[in-house]
């Protein structure tokens, strides 16, 4: 008990820290300077809030689409990250009065032919998962006929793909992009998209801190302090009628207050709204998973045969391959394939990058499983096949593999389950798989229900396989003749 940190006892004590979640890297709102300390408009803002309330501010770095669940679960007290106030979000969380008027924008490569949104017809456009830009692009998809809306975890990976040429444009908040592109001549913000967003600080519903923080904002607006911050970060004062100057009401939810645990984590309305997205994601997960397994099995079998029966050099190469790819984390390899391969001219789509990585890595595991199965077959089987004049091919296909595969069905199935689970890593390269769709849905709805539902979908799909394997394993252990 004595080892517990003090602030656990003093949860409601006004002297405790205010824990602030922020998507660090979101210029000029919250980012790192050269010595690694956090700076930015909103960082200054919350520091001022801390000073006025005489409470310490502790900032932790959380990806944008993770802020909603973090606020609702109480992991953080307050979220900043140029978060737009939307009606949907207001149903699940609270916002202080806004302090900045924003719009969306289209950023492209300076030398590209794309000069406005209509030029994006049939092109891939990048957005941040679950952001206002994402919501806008999704709503206007039919009008502008984008080939695909690709969803990234923040500005940096989206910019990487814009520069590589995997996406034609990036739709995101205009202040961030104006700030980001000002010292990058190869990039240009070519269009302002009037979405009329306003930024605010996000809190859990009915958190009393809301009113304290809002009072500080009123004070900073009337004293002109907020306008000074605007000058500091944007080089000029804010427009007279903007929410940086005007004192406004705390935004109110149009819907009823939903606060209990089930309403937060298994919200029926959110579920009904988002499950079509999840089904779409599940379809991609299944496609990727099954294709990876099929190709991984073939590739693994081929590797195991080379490993067992080819000449010394090839054997050494394959052995090295197997050891290397069993040592590299799949996620690391996937990021290399997706972001580094383009620099040597290999440019995979997100699906193909994920497929390639899964096949290459799972093939190494499959190869070892096949090898152990083949090596378990008695020498007499090979000799009997030889004595009948069977070719090496038919010896394998007719005699050895049917027996070997039967022995290794449990480990093979386990590896297949791993591949299916590992498909979730593909969301890191903007593939709209089940996990990606769930994170997007939860950011748009500002409610973690889609994540919980996606966990159930994985469970319903994988649990029968797991149970089946354990049954087979038990049968094998009981020594039943194969």
């Amino acid at each position: 008990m004595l080892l517990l940190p003090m602030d656990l006892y003093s949860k409601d004590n006004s002297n405790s820290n205010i824990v602030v979640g922020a998507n660090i890297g979101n210029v000029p709102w919250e980012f790192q300077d050269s010595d690694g300390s956090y700076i930015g408009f909103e960082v200054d803002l919350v520091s001022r809030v801390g000073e006025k309330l005489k409470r310490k501010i502790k900032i932790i770095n959380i990806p944008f689409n993770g802020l909603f669940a973090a606020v609702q679960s109480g992991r953080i007290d307050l979220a900043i990250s140029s978060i737009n106030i939307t009606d949907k979000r207001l149903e699940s969380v609270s916002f202080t009065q806004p302090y900045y008027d924003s719009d969306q924008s289209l950023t492209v490569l300076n030398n590209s032919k794309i000069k406005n949104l209509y030029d994006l017809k049939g092109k891939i456009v990048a957005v941040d998962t679950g952001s206002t830009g994402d919501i806008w692009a999704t709503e206007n998809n039919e009008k502008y006929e984008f080939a695909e809306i690709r969803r990234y975890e923040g500005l940096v990976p989206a910019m990487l793909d814009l520069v590589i040429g995997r996406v034609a444009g990036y739709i995101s908040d205009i202040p961030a992009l104006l700030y980001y592109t000002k010292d990058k001549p190869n990039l240009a913000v070519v269009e302002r998209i009037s979405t009329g967003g306003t930024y605010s600080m996000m809190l859990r519903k009915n958190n009393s801190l809301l009113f304290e923080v809002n009072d500080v904002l009123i004070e900073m607006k009337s004293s002109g302090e907020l306008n000074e911050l605007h000058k500091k970060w944007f080089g000029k004062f804010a427009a007279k009628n903007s929410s940086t100057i005007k004192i406004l009401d705390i935004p109110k939810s149009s819907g009823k207050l939903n606060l209990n645990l089930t309403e937060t984590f298994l919200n029926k309305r959110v579920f009904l709204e988002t499950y079509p997205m999840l089904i779409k994601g599940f379809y991609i997960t299944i496609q990727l998973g099954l294709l990876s397994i099929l190709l991984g099995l073939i590739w693994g079998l081929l590797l195991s045969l080379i490993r067992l029966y080819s000449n010394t050099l090839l054997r050494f190469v394959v052995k090295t391959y197997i050891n290397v790819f069993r040592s590299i984390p799949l996620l690391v390899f996937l990021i290399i394939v997706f972001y580094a391969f383009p620099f040597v001219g290999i440019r995979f789509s997100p699906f193909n990058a994920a497929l390639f990585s899964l096949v290459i890595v799972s093939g190494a595991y499959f190869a070892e499983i096949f090898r152990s199965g083949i090596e378990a077959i008695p020498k007499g089987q090979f000799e009997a096949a030889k004595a009948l004049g069977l070719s090496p091919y038919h010896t394998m296909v007719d005699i050895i593999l049917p027996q070997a595969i039967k022995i290794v069905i449990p480990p093979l199935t386990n590896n297949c389950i791993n591949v299916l689970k590992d498909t979730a890593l593909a969301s890191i390269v903007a593939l709209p798989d089940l996990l990606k769709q769930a994170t997007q849905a939860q950011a748009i709805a500002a409610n973690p229900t889609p994540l919980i539902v996606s966990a159930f979908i994985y469970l319903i799909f994988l649990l029968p396989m797991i149970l089946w394997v354990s049954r087979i394993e038990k049968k094998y252990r009981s020594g039943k003749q194969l």
Partner: protein
Amino acid sequence: MSVLINLKNVSKHYGDFCAVKRIDLSIIEGEVLCIIGPSGSGKSTLIRCINYLEEYDDKGIITVNGITVKKGNNLKNIRKEVAMVFQNFNLFPHLNILKNVMLGPIRSLKVSQSSAKKLAYDLLGKVGIRDQANKFPYQLSGGQQQRVAIARALAMKPKVILFDEPTSSLDPEMVSEVLDVIKELAGTGVTMVIVTHEMSFARQVADKIIFMDEGIIVEEGSPDQIFDDSKKERTQIFLKSVLKA
């Protein structure tokens, strides 16, 4: 009567150990040859050289039906002519009895499914287990399994069948059913080379007996010559010890 199999100066080394030492031997078409001798004398190794399951040393040469037994394309043709029955049966456990017998003709002789099936049923009838055709090997007794293995060998319509201690893994009560099948084959004109520890069987079935010890042929001759009138002391000592048991 022509020579079917010819061995000239055949040796087999495992590292420094010499299992078979400079063997010269001719086997005539239609002949039943039994090879006897103590364990470890090189009998099995010798017959496994004939279908090249063992690679014999380079300076020797084996020919079957005029074709040299060496690595390469000819090996497939050799193995069509030379069938083998193993001590441990080596049936394919994932295939039923019928398919065990059909596989060789279909894959190596390119026989059609239907004629392979007919052949398999005929041969299973010949070895007395036609009614077991749809069972799997593990459902059969050891003696039955070895009879399937003999049918599988016969399905290749070979010129010669090599038997590598065909009854050594069997329970005593099953030995005779297998030996009876082999005896019947002896009357059909197929050449057979049989490594065996069954002395009375060897005497009964063989046209010629070879006694091997420590990798060499100590003595060869007709069954009567070897069993009743051996010229070599090592043969006499061996026979005395096994016949007494």
